[in-house]
């Protein structure tokens, strides 16, 4: 992982409530880079998130709203956020219930701009 990418992911994890962030290959769900994902089965989460984003992306295209720029999986005790980074990558963030989703979203979009 390059130092720039590490710093970028690190910025996302500094948002309050974020448990970790990772860069994932959108097509096969492989983890490219990750930060602060202790206690998380990153490979499995990455694969599931990539699959989820792919299906949701197909649904979005068919309905005519276009490819998603931001995906938010909301759960009782946290959230999974995903933003496409370029054509083949996804920036995925895992957060607990205390996260400010708007803030995390902003930081993720900034990172994508840098690494995309």
């Amino acid at each position: 992982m390059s130092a720039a990418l590490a710093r970028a992911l690190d910025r996302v994890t500094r948002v309050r409530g974020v448990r970790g962030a990772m860069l994932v290959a959108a097509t096969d769900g492989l983890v490219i880079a990750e930060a602060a994902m202790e206690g998380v089965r990153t490979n499995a989460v990455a694969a599931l998130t990539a699959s989820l984003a792919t299906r949701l992306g197909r649904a979005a295209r068919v309905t005519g709203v276009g490819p998603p720029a931001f995906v938010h999986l909301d759960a009782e005790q946290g959230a999974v956020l995903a933003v496409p980074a370029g054509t083949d990558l996804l920036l995925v963030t895992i957060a607990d219930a205390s996260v400010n989703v708007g803030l995390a979203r902003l930081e993720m979009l900034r990172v994508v701009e840098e690494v995309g």
Partner: protein
Amino acid sequence: MADDIRALTAELARDPDSLAFLELGETLRARGRVDAAATVARTGLERHPQDPEGHDLYARILADAGNPEAARETWEVVLTLAPRHPGALKGLAYLAYRAGDPVGALELLETALSVDPSDPSVVQALQTVRIAIERMEADAEVRTGADIFAGFEGAEYGLLLVDAQGLILGGVLRDGQGRDVAQEVAAYAAGAAAEAQRAVRLLELGEWRGLVAEAPEGHLHVSAPAPGTVLLVKRERAVPPARLALAAQRAGTAARAWLEAQRG
């Protein structure tokens, strides 16, 4: 033995060819003596095989005895002998209604009414059957899911309820050009919902509440209003995600009510 039965039995014994078997058989049937009534009817029919009244009596006895199939066949014999026999028409209508075919019953009763428009039993039966048909039509409308989201914003283009296998339960989903895309999206939405559930379980985040996709031309919201179901809401980009979640919540309540009605 009651006096009337005794008298009718004696009359029949005096003149076995008489039609007294009709009254005797009916009296026995009306008093619940189905076996005796059947014996009288069969004996009478041996002597009067072309008598529609005799067959009608026997059909009623068979229906009372819990043999609707034989009763139906016997009433059909009546109609070959007397095509507009009101008793047979009413009897067949009753069997059709009991078999869950109120439309078939209605046709038979309308024919019976044309034979005798003042028959109160036909008028009453018609009313019962018409109510059953109305109820059936209302149920069918509910089953199609056409009305799940009636009156909701976006009901004509952006509210879709599917099952976990991606099969449409109700609602409408159209793309920007107004094309029906429900079938295709149903499969993707169900798949995305399944992945969402797996992901939150893996991360121990509790139950998932919703999945939002923000896109350049609009937003999608996917949720599971009830176990085994997936709700997809589509809105234009101007609708903020938080309002989209509220719309999904309200549509979810309607979906749950509809599912509850389905089970009832």
